[in-house]
């Protein structure tokens, strides 16, 4: 899920910047990245997001799931997102 401290700054067209105010670092996101970021709410899994992506973009590649996972990994390694662990009861 998205780090709640990180700011999504939608700049122009559908491009955006993720701004981490604690470090001052900023990361550019293309429109697909913005779409994914908005679904990092702790309720959607990477599979859910890949499915949503495929239904939103008719030209989404077949390996969209891999791209989603790559972006999430990159966000996590930069402290912009984290994993939410599902608790089985």
């Amino acid at each position, binding site marked *: 899920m998205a780090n709640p401290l990180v700011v999504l700054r939608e700049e122009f067209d559908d491009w955006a910047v993720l701004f981490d*105010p604690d470090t001052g670092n900023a990361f550019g996101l293309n429109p697909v990245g913005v779409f994914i970021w908005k679904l990092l709410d702790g309720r959607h899994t990477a599979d859910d997001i890949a499915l949503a992506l495929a239904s939103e973009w008719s030209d989404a590649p077949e390996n969209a799931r891999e791209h989603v996972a790559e972006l999430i990994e990159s966000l996590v390694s930069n402290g912009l997102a984290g994993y939410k662990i599902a608790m089985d009861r």
Partner: protein
Amino acid sequence: MRLMNTPRSMEISITPRCNLRCRYCSHFSSASDVDQDLRLEDWLDFFDELGRNAVMDVTLEGGEPFLRQDLAPILDGIVKNRMRFGILTNGTLIDDAIVHHIETTRRCNQVQVSIDGSRPETHDRFRGEGSFERAIQGIRLLQRHGVPVSVRVTVHKHNVDDLEATARMLLEELGLPGFSTNSASFMGLCRAHADEVRLDTAQRTDAMATLLRLQKRYPGRISAAAGPLAEAVLWMGMTRALREGREAEPGRGFLSGCGGVMSGLAVRPDGAIIPCIQLSHMELGRINRDDIKGIWQDHPALARLRVRTATRLGDFEFCRGCVYIPYCTGGCPATAYTMMHDENHPSPEGCLKRFLEDGGRLPDEPER
């Protein structure tokens, strides 16, 4: 022209009050010199709006920001809204408690302290007795707490011969990573004290040579966006381009000297929203009354400033016959306003042709 949805940064004159009356202060006697200090609640409401608009950076200036007794909750309001901040100060009112608070926010880009000389005689000349010692104490306090601190040196008639010692003091004795320079511009109180304060052409020539030499001695540690060092770099590039018969670079030959209105806005101490602290006469709206995003995207005065870049320098009588037009930016709109009463005019302060006609000389090109 692509415009961001909202401004990225905001300059805020958080108070009109100051404990000093520097002879070249750009604030006093400008349109920002109002008699109203807004309440903490007003600023906090405004910061909430900035947060909703994903503004990234706020710079607090004045007047003197450290005069505000409520500076700590002001900073908390910025932090709460996921922004970072910087503070421009004369450095004389910084105490341990507020520096500790700044440190604990972990959101401070820098505190910029004005230092105008290596010793009290030069610094205090236009800033008032005792201000040098207190400002240096302020810098040391910031350093002890690990708060990023920078220095701005304003070059004027009575410190131009002290620049070498100033660089040594700041970079070697205080161990600062760097400092920036400008010069006393024709704004605010400087307009009334111009002859006493501003560099004459010969001093400007000396300042350029000295600062370029110091820049070589301290690589990457002395910078300038205005004043003699910035002018030397810009103007030497222009004369080189002319000599080599180069074509104009993109944007040159037009009023392209400032891109600030593409990235940020400013606010006066009374809450008037303005394009830039130095263009404080141009009221665009009021905080907590007018929508900042609406002003940013739709205000006609901002739109006019943004299309300055389509105004040809060759169309101005002022520039007629100048061989440097293809390489020139027209300089700062704020000094164009204070000198010509028109921000959409080339600035005489930034005019190479005029500098040379007055007997100015650019430093020799370094050997390649």
